[in-house]
């Protein structure tokens, strides 16, 4: 009889499921990401008969129909990123660090432009700034008495496209900068003030250098967003007679499909992203910014004094472009007899509303699919991101670095490229998922994973491991302490991530356009179809409905009892 026996039995009873569960997640992640990428590589190096060739790449760099879009995309992404930084960084600073009036309203409006799907924004800007029929140009001609063909704006141009893309990309930069500033402690600035520096000097020498990493990250995200968007270029660039890489790749799938060329065409985008991410890592990797802690005081707000109201006016003026004007144009089109005729009491019509509600037979299925996918992808994506961010933050299993890399890797894959990869992977055994909602869900989760992961990882880092250690010392397994200690502490981060993925599904078009079937159509694809046939009234009604749904879900989730209100973190 020994006393060791019962102890051993007890240990067996409390077998730690952590490792199997975590390795399980790792395996799922590998399949999700490695499978489609492998098929892309294989296809890019084969010809139509399946033989090894470099001809696809040769064509890519020798035919102007390929390298022109590549150059266009580069110009587009760089310019958009610069504009986003130039506009969003001062705004983020104003909101987070000054006594700007109605700062909360400004934040809410930025969220509104983030929630607006870029393709919907692009269509709204068509209504506003098409050279002849655009509402703004009509007003311009009415006011100045200009000739029939004169116009103030032409949205069907490269600058027009850059403008519209910036409108719906700048929230990424804004949120990163504003959140970065929110988290920066006031002590450093206090120290500077105590030593006699003015507010402005402190801002220039202390605050701005502190927020630089967030700005850099924001600029990078904006670049990648602009580079990988499909909807806006398809809506604005094609009428203007030029391609970007994404629309070019999409055109390669038209009958007869040329997946090998598309795969090759997508690799430069992939490479460029990887290089940029490495560069960011190198720049930031050397600097340490330990700015999170509970003991620091709230940041000191800089009084703007007589600049308060001008600054506020500028913010509102900027936000008119992605929010007020487009929403007004959509509302006008929804009740107008012809989309760009100004609604009056005489001509207002419910025809479009009636058409969408009672005649448009594909709308209800698309709505159902979108809601199912939004909810499921948000839930599954959040769980996966939570587990991975935990593993990497606590270095819980060997190979955690790989897991973190895999979760970040999809950021380098444009949605349309991922769509192609998934299509190649899941139309053949062992996983025949094409034609089901599953393939779309995989796409949406994969696309959302990098930001969800980074969001939760950032939140995870703010929680000191000592709380978990206490729980584990008292006998809980890793999984149990994750579930009972860490997750509740993270709940605002978790809710924000959930909302982020849900909104992402609403915004997503580029992978869906490759992966849908008539049974698995989503609202974004429906809107895209309607745009191609010029049914702008119906689009406006659906678009407004879509915005209402998204806002309601985001607000409702934030109102769940027991959870605090959260702001978007991107």
């Amino acid at each position, binding site marked *: 009889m020994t006393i060791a026996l019962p102890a051993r039995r007890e240990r067996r009873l409390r077998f730690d499921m952590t490792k199997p569960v975590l390795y399980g997640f790792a395996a799922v992640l590998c399949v999700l990401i490695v499978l489609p990428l492998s098929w892309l590589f294989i296809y890019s190096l084969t010809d139509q*008969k399946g033989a090894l060739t470099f001809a696809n790449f040769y064509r890519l760099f020798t035919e102007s129909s390929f390298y022109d879009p590549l150059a266009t995309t580069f110009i587009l992404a760089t310019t958009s990123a610069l504009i986003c930084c130039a506009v969003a960084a001062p705004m983020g600073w104003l909101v987070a660090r000054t006594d700007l009036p109605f700062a909360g309203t400004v934040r809410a409006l930025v969220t509104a432009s983030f929630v607006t799907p870029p393709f919907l924004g692009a269509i709204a800007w068509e209504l506003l700034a098409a050279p002849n029929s655009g509402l703004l140009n009509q007003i311009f001609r009415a006011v100045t008495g200009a000739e029939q063909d004169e116009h103030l704006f032409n949205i069907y141009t490269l600058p027009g496209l850059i403008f519209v893309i910036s409108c719906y990309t700048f929230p990424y930069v804004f949120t990163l900068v504003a959140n970065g500033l929110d988290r920066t402690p006031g002590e450093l600035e206090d120290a500077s003030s105590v030593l006699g520096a003015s507010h402005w000097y402190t801002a220039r020498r202390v605050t701005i250098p502190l927020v630089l990493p967030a700005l850099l990250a924001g600029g990078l995200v904006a670049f990648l967003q602009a580079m990988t968007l499909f909807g806006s270029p398809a809506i604005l660039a094609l009428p203007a*007679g030029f391609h970007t890489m994404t629309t070019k790749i999409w*055109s390669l799938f*038209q009958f007869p499909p040329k997946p090998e060329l598309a795969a090759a065409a997508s690799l430069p985008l992939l490479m460029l992203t990887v290089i940029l991410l490495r560069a960011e890592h190198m720049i930031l990797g050397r600097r340490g910014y330990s700015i999170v802690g509970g003991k620091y005081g709230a940041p000191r707000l800089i009084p703007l004094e007589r600049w308060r109201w001008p600054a506020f006016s500028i913010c509102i003026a900027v936000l008119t472009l992605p929010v007020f004007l487009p929403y007004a144009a959509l509302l006008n089109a929804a009740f107008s007899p012809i989309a760009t005729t100004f609604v009056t009491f005489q001509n207002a019509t419910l025809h479009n509303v009636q058409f969408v509600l009672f005649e448009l037979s*594909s709308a209800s299925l698309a709505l159902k699919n979108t809601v199912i996918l939004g909810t499921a992808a948000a839930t599954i994506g959040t769980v996966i991101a939570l587990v991975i961010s935990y593993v990497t933050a606590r270095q819980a299993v060997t190979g955690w670095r790989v897991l973190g890399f895999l979760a970040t890797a999809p950021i380098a894959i444009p949605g349309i490229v991922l769509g192609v990869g998934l299509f190649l992977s899941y139309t053949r055994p062992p996983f025949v998922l094409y*034609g089901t909602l599953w393939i779309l869900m995989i796409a949406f989760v994969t696309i959302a994973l990098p930001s969800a992961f980074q969001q939760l990882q950032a939140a995870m880092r703010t929680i000191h491991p000592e709380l978990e250690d206490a729980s584990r010392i008292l006998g809980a397994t890793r999984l149990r302490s994750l579930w009972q200690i860490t997750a509740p502490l993270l709940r605002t981060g978790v809710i924000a991530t959930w909302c982020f993925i849900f909104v992402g599904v609403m915004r997503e078009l580029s992978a869906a356009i490759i992966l849908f*079937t008539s049974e698995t159509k989503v609202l974004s694809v429906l809107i895209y*179809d309607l745009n*191609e046939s010029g049914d702008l009234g119906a689009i406006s009604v659906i678009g407004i409905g879509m915005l209402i749904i998204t806002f309601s879900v985001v607000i409702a989730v934030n109102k769940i009892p027991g959870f605090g209100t959260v702001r978007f973190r991107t």
Partner: protein
Amino acid sequence: MAFSRRDVLKGSTAFAVGTIFASPLRAAVPPPDPITPALIEAAKKEGKVVFYTAMDLQFAEHLGKAFEQKFPGISVRVERSGAERVFQRVGQEYKSNIHAVDVVNTADQSHVIVWKREGWLAPYLPEEVAKYYDKKYYDPDGLALTTRVLVSAFGINTNLLKMEDAPKSFAELLDPKWKGKMVKAHPAYSGTIMNATFEIARELGWGYFEKLAKQNVLQVQSATDVPKRIALGERAIMIDGASYLVIRGKESGQPVDVIYPSEGTPVATSPSVVMIGAPSPSAARLFQNWMHAREGQQMLVDYARQYSPHSQTVEKPGVRKLADIKLMDEDPEGVEKGAEEVKRRYSEYFKV
């Protein structure tokens, strides 16, 4: 999408049953089918029809709703896209063994050639088609029926351009004064435009498009979008597109009008087919039958302002008779072989 030869082979094997079934019938004309109570009963049990079409959305939904009223208990879901996209969609789904669609209507006869070759079509010949349709408007096997005849004339916005000043021929469109004033649709999206482009290139040569592309033309996708752009006043001249929508717009008070170009007006007939893997085979046949019978066809004339192949339909004044228009010749075999070249040349000149 990505299909290796093996995939095609797999696809063909999957539908071998259909092909075997279809081939012997190719010699003999199937007996024409009336709408029988038994067919209606079976269709009601299935309860729904999925209809992929290239028709203008408003009309397609109108047609669907009329069918639902006539046969309560059967719902019609319309999936509208450009004919070339519909073609891509059907191919992508059938080669992945997804059979979601019952009836397909495209605006490009060459698609039928491909689908027949693949053995994807079910033979079905409605009674009224055999009785009242000219032989050129249906396949003797009953695999495909012409639903409507589409012409792609010019259109103008009469607020922006007076009829007497408007261009009356393709040649005039090259005049520098029209630069930046024209809009056209895309042959890789629209079947009407695929046929129109093929016909114009055959009559006037590809050099014509090379010059036209330098006129700063607004490029939209669908043939149904072009008439809406001139109605908005976004451009003054529609080079190609669905003429029936211009006529409908004019009749509803929009400032638009049609011009039939002097070199000839491009034409495309629009076929409908019942798919071999239709999930609701009876409802599919009932819909196909009804759409091509007098009721559906008269709606095509009255509501959609299109040309019906049904000899018993009554014309409604306001549309120029087909016989009075100088038409270009439609050539489905030519389009089937030449579609790739059309797309390649087009994107070479117009950059998209």
